[in-house]
């Protein structure tokens, strides 16, 4: 779990150019971490690239916080 969280943190830092110290489980990508709502879809593509997974559109729209991204991707990887 922590490895997944670390990798999601790394991708988030690289994509959104934010300080890793600002990221908590409750951090919202758009409102708190400065993702333009239009570009949040590219953040999802960055997660897909990191983990070599495919997130469907509905799921991607539902991933709004760092914590939900960790939960969702961990579940996908263990499925």
């Amino acid at each position, binding site marked *: 779990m922590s490895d997944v969280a670390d990798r999601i943190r790394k991708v988030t830092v690289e994509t959104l150019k934010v300080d890793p110290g600002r990221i908590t489980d409750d951090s919202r990508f758009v409102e708190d971490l400065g993702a333009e*709502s*239009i*570009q949040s879809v590219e953040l999802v593509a960055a997660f897909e690239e990191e983990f070599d997974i495919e997130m469907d559109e509905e799921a991607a*729209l539902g991933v709004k916080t760092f914590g939900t991204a960790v939960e969702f991707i961990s579940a996908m990887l263990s499925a």
Partner: protein
Amino acid sequence: MGIIDGFIKKVSGRNLKVVLPEGSDERIILAARRIKDENIAEPIVLGKPEKIAEAIEKAGVNLDGITVINPKESDKLAEYTQKYIGNRDDISEGIAKRMVSKPLFYAGMMVKCGDADTMIAGAASATASVIQAGVLAVGMAEGINTPSSFFLMVIPEYLGETDKPYIFADCAVNINPNATELADIALASASSAKGLLTDEPKVAMLSFSTKGSASHADVDKVVEALEIAKGKNPTLAIDGEFQADSAIVPAVAAKKVKGESTVAGYANVLIFPDLDCGNVAYKLTQRLAKADAIGPFLQGFATPISDLSRGASVEDIVNTTAITLAQL
């Protein structure tokens, strides 16, 4: 002939290409078949082969003679990936390829690269996703940074005219646009009107004030938007701020609007100051005036594209295709 029949006639036989990225939905299969058979346009259907096969089975029609593309296996993927990256240095090739492999974005890149004339999506996707594909893949129209929407309102009878068309905007997307965004909505609406209305666009910036009759920050916003829009397009017939009656009733305009205005009283493009006004206005016009409310359609992109409602019927998809292509 109804107004939609007119648009179908306008686009038919021109071999315009419409890409439909939601090929796993049976309504899309049925619409593609009709669009092809009725010679409205050349449909291109996107999706995974097994999903399209399932949708074909449910639809009970075939896609013979219709181009079907699986974005992931397309030989255009490398080209679209590079075009998507463009001059950006903040996206890797791997992520860009992921993006353009998604049907909505692949469709957007087809439009951007001239491989399709428009994309119609939204039957199986959220409006936000269609707008994202519009902004990131198709790109915005020159000078416009705000995606927005419009309705084509057709009033059965108004001041002696029958089936009088108006453009109403923005009634569906931007909740509380600032002056810059409102100017973008006005300019995009003028462009939409050019494609769809017989008359030249006359754009009215609506308010609760007519030419300074009231003072308020909300009025200032509309006035500022007007000035921005005029600055960006000096030849456009655009004026304000107007109350609705000053915009569309010549007799009221003659009394309330001092000075020359080619728009006052004769506006056919109505720009509402926010979504509260726009949404309420279109619904009241639809119910009280028995107007046809056709839309909403997206606008502001480099090429017109459209979003469908989740509940869109096959006929809605076919008509939306015709109306969107009619703007070209």
